[in-house]
């Protein structure tokens, strides 16, 4: 696919040529940016465009187009960060932005870079996704045809389906990173997301199902079998939820199905292993590297290099190729996710997890694709092992309190399990727990690892990013379930 090698040329053309900038201008700006003696200084140029179409009740009711670009300038000195950005990237605006950073730094001229910074380092290429611009497909009929097919398929599935909303959104993000260590790196990050909501109605009851598919690809990156599976998932969820009974209340064993329920590890483990939370001693896992934090058999990995996934990056937003970081290995805490700033302050090295929502935001250690590795249990045996509990297959996001490790998730598709059998679907149950306790109560890990379908997003300090989460089917012996029953 050659996403990396082409990317730098496209990034130059899209960002620099259009603004009349060249390497020499960037070198001068970096020299000024680092002039206060910064130990980390970088410029992040970004251009993003987005095209969307929406179908409601069989009619094309919405279309959208968005374009934006800009540059963020950052200088850090012993952990003190100064940052400014501009939506204008012509040289005069770039220099104004750099001067704004220097003013915020309140440091005199301590490091001289007369003539600027030599940009003599380049990032390597990658094969994770193609350097294509999915937004460039202006022919609306191609987008609308897919949405109409989704609508027709869902309606024909069952007469109780009364409404289908379907959306497609394609995004092109082109970035260029230049830093005071002489790095110039670029990436072209395509993204296309299909999503749908199904409303089913029967005997006066209304219920909702939802599903989606997201890829680092253009519209041609989806095959019809995948789209059909998405339609089947959303429709099944809506129909199941029509018959849902109130969720049970109390502490009980739970089984989490494969795929998106892996958000448990994103929330309960991943956020607590981000370098900034450790540097500031905020994480419930602070000081526990090398210690057992989970049951044997629990291995959690963050891997930004899985082809096509929305959490994958050829380079992170600091120009570094993401690692495959083993966070927990057979129950032992083994790794943290780092960006340059926090790695530098913790005498560690960046793991390529420096990510930012846009040029207007500061990078932080963020997850990419985070998942629980396969175990050996048969998923059917895991469900059969439950005397009374719940089996959850889809959640509507989740939250974690970093300091206490307390997390919660609310199900949008789940079943009551009795004597090893699924008894009935249940309405939204809220699962709550403390990360390190839940990890110790994992007793069975299945052999059916799946990543989510490409709809996962992650919020941290007001910045939202696309990620992937995943897991095989697993059993947790004790979890608090809150619902309406009892």
């Amino acid at each position: 696919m050659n996403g990396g090698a082409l990317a730098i040329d496209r990034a130059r053309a899209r960002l620099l040529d259009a603004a009349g900038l060249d390497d020499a201008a960037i070198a001068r700006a970096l020299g000024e940016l680092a002039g206060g003696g910064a130990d980390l200084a970088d410029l992040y140029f970004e251009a993003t465009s987005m095209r969307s179409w929406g179908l409601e009740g069989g009619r094309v009711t919405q279309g959208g187009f968005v374009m934006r670009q800009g540059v963020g300038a950052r200088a850090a000195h012993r952990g003190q960060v100064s940052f400014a950005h501009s939506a204008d990237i012509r040289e005069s605006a770039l220099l104004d932005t750099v001067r704004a950073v220097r003013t915020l730094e309140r440091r005199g001229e301590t490091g001289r870079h007369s003539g600027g910074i030599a940009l003599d380092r380049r990032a390597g290429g990658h094969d994770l996704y193609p350097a294509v611009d999915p937004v460039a497909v202006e022919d609306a009929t191609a987008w609308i045809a897919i949405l109409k097919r989704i609508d027709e398929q869902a309606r024909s599935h069952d007469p109780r389906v009364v409404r289908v909303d379907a959306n497609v959104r394609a995004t092109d993000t082109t970035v260029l990173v230049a830093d005071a260590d002489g790095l110039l790196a670029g990436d072209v990050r395509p993204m296309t997301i299909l999503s749908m909501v199904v409303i089913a109605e029967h005997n006066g009851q209304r219920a909702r199902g939802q599903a989606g598919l997201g890829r680092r690809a253009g519209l041609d990156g989806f095959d019809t079998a995948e789209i059909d599976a998405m339609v089947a998932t959303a429709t099944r969820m809506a129909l199941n939820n029509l018959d849902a009974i109130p969720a049970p209340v109390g502490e009980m064993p739970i089984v989490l199905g494969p795929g998106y329920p892996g958000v448990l590890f994103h929330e309960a483990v991943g956020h607590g292993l981000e370098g900034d939370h450790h540097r500031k001693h905020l994480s419930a896992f602070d000081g526990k590297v090398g210690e057992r934090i989970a049951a044997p058999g629990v291995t959690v990995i963050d891997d930004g290099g899985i082809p096509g996934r929305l959490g994958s990056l050829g380079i992170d937003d600091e120009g570094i190729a993401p690692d495959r970081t083993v966070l927990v290995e057979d129950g032992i805490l083994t790794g943290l996710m780092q960006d340059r700033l926090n790695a530098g302050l913790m005498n560690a090295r960046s793991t390529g997890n420096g990510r930012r929502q846009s040029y207007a935001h500061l990078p932080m250690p963020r997850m990419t694709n985070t998942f629980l590795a396969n175990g050996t249990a048969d998923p059917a045996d895991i469900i059969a092992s439950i005397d009374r509990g719940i089996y959850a297959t889809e959640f509507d996001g989740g939250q974690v309190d970093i300091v206490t490790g307390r997390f919660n998730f609310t199900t949008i598709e789940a079943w009551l399990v009795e004597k090893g059998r699924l008894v009935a679907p249940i309405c939204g149950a809220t699962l709550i727990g403390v990360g390190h306790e839940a990890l110790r109560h994992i007793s069975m890990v299945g052999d059916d690892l799946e990543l989510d379908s490409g709809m996962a997003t992650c919020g941290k300090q007001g910045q939202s990013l696309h990620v992937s989460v995943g897991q095989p089917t697993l059993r947790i012996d004790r979890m608090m379930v809150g619902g309406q029953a009892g």
Partner: protein
Amino acid sequence: MTRLLSQTETELREAAQLAVELAGRRGARARASVHHEAIAKIAARGGEVETAERSGSQGLGLTVFHEGRRGSASTAGFDRAAVERVVAEAMLIAGHVQPDSDADMPAADALAFSGPAPVLYADSPRGPESLLDAATTMNRIAINIAESDDRLRAGESVAAATEGLWALATSDGFCRSAMRSNDMRWTVMLAHDEGGGTSDFCQSQERRVDGLSSAEQLAKTAADRARSALGARSLDSRRCPVLFEPRVAATLVGELAGALTGTAQHRRMSFLPDPVGRGVAAPHLDLHEDPFEPLGLASGGFDSEGIAGSSRAILRSGVVEGLFLSSFTARKLGMASTGNADGYYNLRLSSTAESGDWHEMLQMLGTGLVVTQFQGGKTDPASGNWTQAVRGLWVEDGHVVHAVADVTLAGTMAAMLNGIRAVGRDVERMGAIRTGSILIDDMRVGGRA
């Protein structure tokens, strides 16, 4: 005089009018909205500056109306080439969506060409130096408080200021603009004991600096909140009365208002279907909307269609008197726009029932759960089924016994609204919403057993 902005109101109005004019040349009617916002933010930790940021955003959003069809596009750049591209993209979209007469522009006589424009901007010190002083001073106060109690540690203290401009132009000749300001302070406190760690914060947000809570008040409240959350434990599952602190009570008011929006109503995704004229909450409750409160955090002279809101009752004696409608959702429901295309303006929940300050509300609670934080959960908009993981305090005979965590609360919004026994006089403002603490007689608590 503005401290942060780099563009003028005139420049924004001209950009909006240019977009409308270019759309007009292609035979379309149009509406253009342009915003420019500048932010300065300083975060301090350990007595020193940790991050210093100058940021902001800008954008031009255009909606064209052509032969019964609508298309929208937006750009962050206002130069002529960008505006021309946006017009072309919006026209392309309008060429493909299906016609919908309900999606047309509002009639010109519905627009607020003139009329009350609440003050949304106040001059205040907002330069980086002022914010640096504010953040480091607040952080030093927090550190001093933490030094007096070995269970406490000061987290970050943040001072942030925003100044913004907004202009709206339409092909009916409407062109108005507004300048806004916003000042924020918050401070975080961490608390540890043998049972583990916790954290909490306190924040203040106003449109002028001199309206903000003092640094001492913020640091002291954050410390009190963090300390009181130590030693938290779960409860046995039970039914009991629940008192929601004002900052969480505002979320409940927001859920009620959300169910009364035009979008929820016309999509039938509201737990209050066909609510106008119907009693949906306890009969001692009133909910009032005021778009025109000077320096109100959710004030505005007109919405993004150019239509003014009005000072009015949303709930009177528990009965719904009004919805929050745009021209589109109003047509779908056979009603008239209420000037709420961007959601609700300032809301105030009040009650004619017995009330009291915080301590009196604890007495009225008697034995039950105080909710101090929602940690996550879900409201099903269609059924009103509501569940939340919460943090709080267990109270017996009006006295706090211990902190509570690892419990869920569940109910239905309809039953909760009807079950409100009292609204406290401890009124706080959380963004658009003002409310005191809310006491609900009987809710389901899910705990360990």
